[in-house]
C-alpha cells in the first residue's frame, strides 16, 4: 500500500485521534475560540488558561472531524501546554511550514521531531486545512482579547 498514506496515517496519529489528549471543556479558561472549516464541517474549540506572565498554563479542546484535524488538535495541546504565548505562536509557524512542505528552521530539534509525525500531510494538499485548523483556532483564541 501507498507509502505516503502509511506516513499520513501512522500509528501515533491514529492514536492521537482515537485517544485525544486534553479533550474536554475548561471552566476557568481565559481564552477560547471555536474554529470551523465550512468546506468539510470539521470543528474544534480551543480553551486556554493564560497566566499573567503570558504562559499557557492549561489548554484543552473539543472537536469533531477527521483523524488529521483531531490528532493535530491533540498533538498541539500536548505541545503548547506550559509554554508562553510567544513560544506557542512560533511553534504554530513551524507547524504550518511543515505541513505545507516548506522548510522549517527556527524550531528546536525536539519540537521538530515531535511535530514531524504530521509531516506526511504535506503530500496531501487537500488535507492541510484539516491539520492547521486547531492551530489557527488557538491563534484566534489568543488574539480574541485585542480583537473583540
Amino acid at each position, binding site marked *: 500500500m501507498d507509502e505516503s498514506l502509511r506516513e499520513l*496515517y501512522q500509528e501515533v496519529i491514529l492514536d492521537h485521534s482515537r485517544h485525544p489528549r486534553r479533550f474536554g471543556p475548561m471552566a476557568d479558561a481565559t481564552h477560547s475560540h471555536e474554529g470551523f472549516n465550512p468546506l468539510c*464541517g470539521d470543528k474544534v474549540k480551543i480553551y486556554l488558561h493564560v497566566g499573567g506572565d503570558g504562559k499557557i498554563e492549561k489548554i484543552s479542546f473539543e472537536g469533531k*472531524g477527521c*483523524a*488529521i484535524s483531531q490528532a493535530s488538535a491533540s498533538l498541539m495541546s500536548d505541545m503548547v501546554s506550559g509554554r508562553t504565548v510567544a513560544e506557542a505562536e512560533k511553534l504554530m509557524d513551524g507547524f504550518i511550514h511543515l505541513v505545507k512542505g516548506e522548510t522549517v528552521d527556527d524550531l528546536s530539534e525536539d519540537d521538530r521531531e515531535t511535530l514531524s509525525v504530521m509531516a506526511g500531510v504535506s503530500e496531501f494538499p487537500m488535507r492541510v486545512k*484539516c491539520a492547521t485548523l486547531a492551530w489557527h483556532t488557538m491563534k484566534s483564541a489568543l488574539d480574541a482579547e485585542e480583537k473583540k
Partner: protein
Amino acid sequence: MSSFIPPREDFDILSRTVYGNPLVYLDNAASAQKPRIVLDAMRTLATTGYANVHRGVHFLSAVSTEAYEKARETVARFLHAGHADEIVFTKGSTEAINLVSYSYLAPRIQAGDEIVLTVMEHHSNIVPWHFLRERFGAVLKWVDVADDGSLDADAVDAVIGPKTKLVAVGHMSNVLGTLAPLKDIVARAHAKGVPVLADGSQSAVHEIVDVGDLDVDFFAITGHKLYGPTGIGALYAKRFFLKQMRPFQGGGEMIGEVTMDRITYADPPARFEAGTPPILEAHGLAAALDWLMAQDRAGAKAYEASLYAYARERVRELPWLRVIGDAPDKGAILSFESENMHAHDIATVLDREGVAVRAGHHCAQPLMERFKVSSTTRASFALYNVQEDADRLINALKKAKEMLG
C-alpha cells in the same frame, strides 16, 4: 448488467490514472465529466463563429446568436417545455433558484408567509429561502423524510397551509438519491393554489424530465452535472410566472428602453439575462444534451440502477459501514458513514487507490443533522461507470478499514 453499453470512449479523462491506478470516477453527483463532443463544439464555435450575441448584425454575431438561441430550444426540448421562451439561462441551478427567490418570491412575501421545503434540500435550495426569512420574516416549514430517506407527498401536503407561498423541493437528493414524488407534490400544492419549484440539479441527468407532465412551475438545472460545461445552467418557468416576475440583475440585453430617469424592461426570457451570457457554455450545454438525448436513456437509467444495486449489495460485505438512504426507486447515489472512520479519511485512502468519491456534508447540513451524522462518504454513478468501478470501490474501502479502522 444490462444491454446498455457505457460510452466510455467519449470521455478522454476516464482513461487517465491517479497515483498509478486507473481512475474510478464516482463523484458524478458533484460534477460529471464532459464528452469530447462538448469540448469540440465549444472550440469550434470559438475558432470559427464567435462574437457577442444579439446586438450584432455581422456574420459571426449571427452565428453565435443562432447557436445561443438554438441552445435554448435544445434545453426546452430536453425538459419537454412547451416554449423555448420559458427557458432562462443562468450560471447554474444555484442562480436559477436565486432568480426565483429574488424576482418572483421576494416582492410577494410578507412576514409570516411560509415556504415549504424538505430536510433533504441542498444548500442552494435552502439559503435563498433563509434570505427571505432574514430579510422579510418568511417562515421556513420543513418536511421530514422517512428513516430510509424516502419522501412522502402526504407529508408535504400536511405542511402546506393558507400562508404557504411556495413549495421548494429537490427532485432528487444529492445525498440520499431519493426521488421525490414530484408530480404528486405538484398536484397537492396546486390544489391549494401554491406554486412549486423543483431543484432538478440531480434528477435531470438520470430521469427523463417532462415539465409539462409534472406540471411543475419552476425547474432548475445545472450544466456541469449534465455532462456539460461549467458556468451554465437554466431555469424553466411557466410563461405565466415569468411574465409577472421583476428583473433580477440589471444590465445589457434585459432592458426595453433606458433614459436618465426612466426604464422599461424586455420581455422574458431576455428580462432575466442581464449582460453578456455564457455564450460558448450554452452552446456546449446544447451539445451535451444532444449527446445525452442520443443515448438510450431508458437503457442508461436501468444500467445505472443495476450498477447501484450491485454496489449496494456489495457494501453489505462491509458491516462497519452504515448506508444512509435506501428509498425505493432511488438514484444511483450511495452514501455511507462509519462510526470509527471519518469520511475525509476514507476518501483520502480511496483517492490513493484511484477511486474518486466525495466526503463531507454535501451542502446538505440539515440532512446531516436529521441523520445525526457530521458527514458521509458518497459514491455516485454516471452512465459511463462500470461494474469494475464498484468492485474497485469495495476493495479500496477494505483497505481504508485496514489502515484506519
